[in-house]
C-alpha cells in the first residue's frame, strides 16, 4: 500500500497558556546569554566588592549596556513573573482568586519593571 503520509492540517484556537508556554521557552533561549552574562560578569568576575555607585552608574549609562540591561529586564522579569503566575495557578483552584492573584502579579510586574526601566533610561553618566 502506498501511503503518502500527508500531515493533516487543523485549526487550533490560540490560547493564553499556549502563548505563555511558548514565551517561556523563547525567552529562555535569550536569557542564557542575558542572565548568565549578567550574573557571571557582575557577581563572579567583577564581584560585589568591586562595585561602587560610580561603577554602577557608569555601566548603566553606557549605551551598549543600557540596551543589554533593558533586554534583560524585559525578558528575565517577565519570564520570571509569568513563571510565578504558573506556579500559583497550580495551587490556587478558585478561578476568582486566581484572577485576583494574576492581576496583583501583573501590577507588581508592571510597577517594578517601570521603576527599573526609568532608572535605566534616565540615568546619566557621572562626570569626574
Amino acid at each position, binding site marked *: *500500500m502506498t*501511503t503518502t*503520509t500527508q*500531515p*493533516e*492540517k*487543523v*485549526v*487550533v*484556537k490560540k*490560547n493564553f*497558556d*499556549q502563548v*505563555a*508556554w*511558548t514565551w517561556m521557552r523563547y525567552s529562555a533561549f535569550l536569557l542564557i546569554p542575558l542572565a548568565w552574562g549578567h550574573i557571571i560578569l557582575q557577581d563572579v568576575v567583577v564581584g560585589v566588592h568591586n562595585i561602587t555607585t560610580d561603577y554602577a552608574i557608569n555601566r548603566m549609562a553606557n549605551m551598549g549596556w543600557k540596551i543589554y540591561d533593558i533586554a534583560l529586564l524585559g525578558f528575565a522579569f517577565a519570564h520570571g513573573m509569568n513563571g510565578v503566575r504558573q506556579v500559583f*495557578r*497550580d*495551587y490556587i*483552584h478558585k478561578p476568582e482568586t486566581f484572577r485576583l492573584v494574576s492581576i496583583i502579579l501583573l501590577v507588581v510586574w508592571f510597577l517594578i519593571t517601570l521603576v527599573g526601566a526609568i532608572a535605566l533610561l534616565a540615568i546619566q553618566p557621572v562626570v569626574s
Partner: protein
Amino acid sequence: MQIKLRVFRFDPERDQKPRFDTFMMDVDPNDRVLDLLEYVKADFDSTLALRRSCAHGVCGSDAMRVNGRNYLACKVLVKNLGTDQITVEPILGLKVIKDLIVDMKPFFDHYRSVLPYLINDDPLPADGKERLQSPEQQLRFEDTTKCILCAACTTSCPSFWSDANYVGPAAIVNAHRFIFDSRDKAGGKRLNILNEQFGVWRCRTAFNCTEACPRDIHITQAIAEVKRAVNTGRIE
C-alpha cells in the same frame, strides 16, 4: 525471606484518621506485592480492601504506591524492591475511600473529556471491508493504544497532585491514540480541548508518569507530540 510489610489502612466507617498496619511475613522473593496483600487477607486481616483482577498487569486495577512509587501491585516482585521493608499506600491525588481503594471517578471523567473514541463520519469502504491503514500509519500511534487506564501515571504527576483539574497524562495518552490515528477525523477537536486551561500546558515534564507506566508507554513523548501538534496545527 522475612519481610516487614506496612499497609495503609483507613475505614471510613470507623477511623477518623488513616493508620498503618504492620505485618511480618515469610515470602518468596518472586512473590508479587499483590500476593503479599492476598496473604494479609488470607492469614492476617481479611478486612483489607483493595481492587485487583487479572494479577498480571493487564487490567489496571491495582495501581498503588509501593515504597513511595507507583506500581501495579501485580507487576512488582519483592525482589525488584531490593529491601525487606515494604510499604504500600494508595495512589495519591484521588480521594481514599477505604484502605487501598480510591475514588476513580475524577480520573475517568478526565479520560472522557478528550473524546476517547474514533470519530470518522466518512462513508465506509464500499465493499464493507476494513479501512486501509499502512503498517507505518498503525505504528504511529500503537504505543498509546497500550494504555490500560490504571492511573499510575496521572497520580504520580506533580501537576495533578496540586490541581486535580489537570486532565493528566492518561487522558492525553488516550487523546494521542486517536489524534495520530490516520482513520480519525477529530484530531483538531481534541487538540483544541487539550489547548485549554487544564490541558497539555499543565505538564511540566516532570516525567514521573513515564517512569510509572506499567505498559512502558512513552507518555512524556506523547504529550510533547500533542503540544507540538497544538502549536503547529499539523498532525504528522
